[in-house]
């Protein structure tokens, strides 16, 4: 047997982990015993989305490691252990905790560290950096007793850090040495536009400032003194003045490093030692350090190929970027500064709407060399493809940035891209690979993501991926059928719009005008639900009754034996002893099985259909209302005990939960809707697992949306912070109305949002910024539902004609003889098949 060679990887950051994952995917991990050193206390996580830590993402959410990855692939990881020395002659690595490993091949993936300018006072308290989860934790805790924060550095990362400071509720400053923001990516006019936009958001920008010393402040913990004599008082100082490669360990063992740092590598990513590779931000290729993940991933792939004995080389990477900084779209492509000989420049500037665009083209106007977009970057994908693939420009290149002609008309259709065009740079997925996956049957974005990994990194390529998919599917004659069913050639959203615009009030009218056949169990309840959300009629009105799902027609949940369960509303989970006693009495009288539900209320099971009105009469007399447990509608608003009793409570979570539940009860929706309200961040009500979650903070309510438990649990996203109650309710009104209008049938809020182009940001722009100008309508729509609420059970028991149906037989008072109960743990339960046979025989005998 051949003994395996040992492969050691130093650093388990984004690139180190991607290297291991590619190695496993290629299968050649089996040839090696693999050991990796990870200095941080946790394995690799997504630094690119690090800022989402502030919007509620946890370290687990950010993890880049599939559960069980190391165990399943037999990779040893030394967590929290830094490799301290490389002995090249004995080919071994020694760690700080004293582990020594002999290697055959070594990969350095040590990344970089934030550069902190050596000004006096740079190491004072609350002077921080922004790179690891620990850094973010330090920021959060420093922010607790702070009012003002300043970021040193107005580059890409600095602005992201500034956003984090504003989110933490600090008065925020950005201090930049250069005369403009994002000097690397933007030209002067672009930088100026960005500055204006960011200042509008309440951040103070100081450019051309050189910090000379940091000392004690008077109002704040620190004071920054600038070379020009000005001063700035601030509690927190966050350095984001660039990164430096972590090359110490390479220097120590005399590997070649660049004059300004960085471990020198060749096209195979080999260092000056033929058994040592370096990849990611610690590596210096052709005099360049790449501070982005995509080039690091490309290096990782190169090393995997090299180890596998394939020909591969890293030949540089595109540094184009598109991001949203503090809500402002910014993109930079290729030669943004027009450094190429003979380059021509077109610019478009719109001061009113704060949009700036610049195109850099070759002398013959045939090739796109670079571009800058600020304020509006939807053309990024198209421009990038022109640039990367050398596609010939249209006759008037300025059409690409002028708003008069729509982007669509000059936009590069996906068909114009060659098969080799890279669609996703994070995972190097070409158009060819996407097409191949589509051929193999991946016909949804979800399936494509899973198969090709495209769009699972920074997400920037999602719109392009979608347009490639659609055009390929169309070419294959696939009609992407979104019809709700064979009776209506429309989506649920279309049907909603038809009902709204044409003021249609019944299923029959809709079917007559827009459908065919008689309908089915798909379209009927869907239309029933739309009619109910829009008009809020009594759902058992004769013309609506036949549309409802069984549970809705009997206003109760059918159980396996045909009996029903009864779930009265217990708003916010708050219930008085008298109400509990009343429930208990009803349960006892009708011999029902009783259980506390997962939704903080009580369920009574085993009621025959003929008993339902009697039971509900008693419950209504006792003060209960329908809990809509049977409907696609608002279910529960769970609460924790909150500030009234809890020693940690910050606000009255029960009070708010009760108010919200009363506000939205009865609302019919595409799927069920669940809420929760917690009184502090300990989150005992599990609000972050709900469609709508609210958490009290010192500065107001934080609103979370689009979470759920169930089959595919999803944490909710932080939607808005520090809200007063009025604003909170306004946002929820709009959010729910928009969901009701636009979601597919049986689509919960999470899937709805995830399938929405633009996702959470788009949703925010609709609900908070009123991008579609819909908010007033959405609020009115909700108000109508609220104003027309009535308890369906109360209406039903008051209407003799409706009660006729609550009998098992239309022509007899006999009950269903197939319903048989036995006892278990002191309560009833449905008899099983065997037991039922036995009991029936006894009865007959």
């Amino acid at each position, binding site marked *: 047997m051949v003994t395996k060679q040992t492969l050691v990887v130093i650093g388990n950051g984004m690139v180190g982990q991607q290297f291991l994952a590619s190695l496993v995917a290629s299968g050649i991990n089996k040839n090696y015993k693999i050991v990796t050193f990870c200095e941080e206390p946790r394995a690799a996580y997504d630094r690119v989305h690090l800022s989402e830590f502030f919007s509620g993402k946890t370290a687990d959410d950010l993890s880049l490691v599939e559960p069980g990855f190391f165990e399943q692939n037999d990779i040893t990881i030394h967590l929290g252990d830094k490799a301290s020395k490389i002995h090249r002659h004995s080919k071994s690595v020694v760690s700080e905790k004293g582990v020594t490993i002999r290697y055959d091949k070594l990969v350095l993936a040590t990344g970089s560290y934030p550069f902190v300018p050596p000004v006096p006072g740079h190491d004072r308290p609350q002077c921080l950096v922004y790179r690891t989860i620990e850094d973010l934790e330090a920021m959060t805790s420093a922010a607790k007793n702070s009012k003002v924060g300043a970021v040193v550095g107005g580059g890409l990362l600095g602005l992201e850090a500034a956003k984090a400071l504003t989110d933490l509720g600090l008065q925020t400053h950005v201090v930049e040495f250069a005369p403009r923001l994002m000097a690397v990516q933007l030209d002067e006019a672009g930088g100026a536009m960005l500055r204006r936009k960011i200042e509008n958001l309440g951040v103070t920008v100081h450019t051309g400032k050189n910090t000379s010393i940091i000392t004690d402040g008077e109002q704040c913990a620190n004071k920054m003194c600038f070379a020009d004599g000005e001063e700035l008082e601030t509690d927190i100082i966050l350095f984001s003045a660039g990164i430096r490669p972590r090359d110490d360990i390479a220097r120590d063992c005399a590997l070649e490093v660049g004059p300004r740092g960085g471990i020198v590598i060749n096209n195979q990513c080999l260092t000056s030692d033929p058994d040592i590779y370096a990849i990611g931000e610690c590596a210096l290729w052709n005099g360049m350090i790449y501070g982005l993940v995509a080039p690091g991933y490309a290096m990782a792939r190169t090393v995997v190929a090299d180890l596998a004995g394939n020909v591969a080389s890293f030949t540089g990477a595109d540094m184009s970027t598109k991001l949203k900084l503090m809500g402002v779209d910014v993109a930079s492509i290729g030669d943004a500064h027009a450094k190429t000989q003979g380059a021509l420049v077109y610019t478009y500037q719109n001061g009113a709407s704060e949009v700036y665009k610049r195109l850099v083209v070759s002398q013959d106007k045939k090739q796109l060399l670079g571009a800058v977009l600020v304020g509006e970057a939807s053309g990024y994908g198209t421009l990038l493809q022109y640039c990367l693939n050398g596609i010939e420009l249209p006759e008037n290149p300025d059409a690409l940035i002028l708003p008069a002609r729509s982007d669509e008309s000059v936009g590069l259709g996906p068909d114009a891209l060659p098969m080799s065009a890279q669609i996703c740079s994070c995972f190097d997925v070409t158009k060819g690979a996407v097409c191949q996956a589509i051929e193999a049957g991946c016909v949804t974005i979800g399936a494509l993501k899973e198969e090709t990994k495209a769009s699972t990194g920074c997400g920037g390529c999602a719109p392009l991926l979608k347009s490639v998919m659609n055009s390929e599917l169309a070419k294959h004659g696939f009609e992407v059928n979104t019809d709700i069913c064979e009776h209506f050639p429309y989506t649920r959203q279309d049907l909603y719009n038809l009902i709204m615009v044409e003021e249609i009030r019944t299923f029959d009218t809709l079917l007559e005008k827009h459908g065919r056949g*008689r309908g089915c169990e798909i379209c009927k309840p869907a239309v029933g639900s739309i009619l109910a959300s829009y008009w809020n009629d009594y759902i058992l009105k004769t013309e609506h009754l*036949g549309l409802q799902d069984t549970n809705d027609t009997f206003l109760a949940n059918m159980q*396996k*034996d045909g009996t029903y369960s009864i779930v009265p509303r217990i708003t916010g989970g708050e219930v008085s002893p008298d109400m509990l006693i009343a429930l208990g009495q009803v349960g006892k009288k009708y011999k029902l099985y009783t259980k506390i539900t997962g939704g903080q209320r009580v369920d009574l099971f085993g009621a025959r259909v003929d008993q339902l009105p009697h039971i509900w009469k008693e419950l209504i007399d006792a003060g209960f209302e329908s809990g809509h447990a049977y409907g696609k509608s608002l279910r529960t608003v769970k609460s924790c005990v909150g500030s009234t009793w809890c020693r940690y409570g910050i606000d009255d979570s029960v009070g708010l939960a009760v108010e919200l539940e009363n506000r939205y009860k009865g609302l019919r929706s595409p799927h069920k809707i669940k809420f929760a309200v917690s009184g502090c961040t300990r989150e005992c009500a599990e609000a972050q697992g709900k469609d709508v979650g609210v958490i009290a903070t010192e500065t107001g309510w934080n609103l979370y949306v689009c979470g759920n438990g169930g089959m595919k649990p999803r944490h909710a996203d932080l939607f808005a912070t520090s809200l007063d109650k009025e604003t909170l309710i306004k946002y929820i009104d709009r959010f729910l109305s928009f969901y009701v209008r636009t979601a597919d049938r049986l689509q919960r809020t999470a899937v709805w949002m995830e399938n929405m182009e633009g996702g959470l940001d788009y949703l925010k722009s609709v609900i908070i910024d009123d991008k579609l100008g819909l908010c007033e309508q959405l609020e009115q729509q909700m108000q109508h539902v609220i104003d027309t609420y009535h308890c369906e059970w109360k209406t039903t028991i008051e209407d003799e004609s409706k009660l006729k*149906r609550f009998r098992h037989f*239309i022509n007899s008072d*006999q009950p269903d003889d197939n319903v048989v109960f036995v006892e278990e743990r002191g309560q009833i339960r449905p008899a099983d*098949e065997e037991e039922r046979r036995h009991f029936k025989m006894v009865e007959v005998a």
Partner: protein
Amino acid sequence: MTQWIDVCSVDDLQPDSGVCALVEGHQVAIFYMPRESVVYALDNYDPFGNANVLSRGLIGDIKGQPVVASPLYKQHFNLQTGVCLEDETVKIPAYAIRIENGSVQVSITEQDDEI
């Protein structure tokens, strides 16, 4: 000869929906589509869910066949023949039914497929 049994009045039926009647010991699910003035009768027992619930299913049509969808696990049964669309080896009894002078009449001798 078909033996018709009076079951209830048309007014007792639920438009575009079902009710259950007890006919000589049989549980009969009766479905009523007033627009086409048709009634259908199937056995009320759902052989998949093992419960007497079919009268409480939603009705409609699938590719032209009139059907009821079981409220428990959503299998479809042809309202004329009782054949299950998802599993054609399963067929539940379908009964002859008619409306005479406002009265709903059922014959519990099982219908032939041909009718």
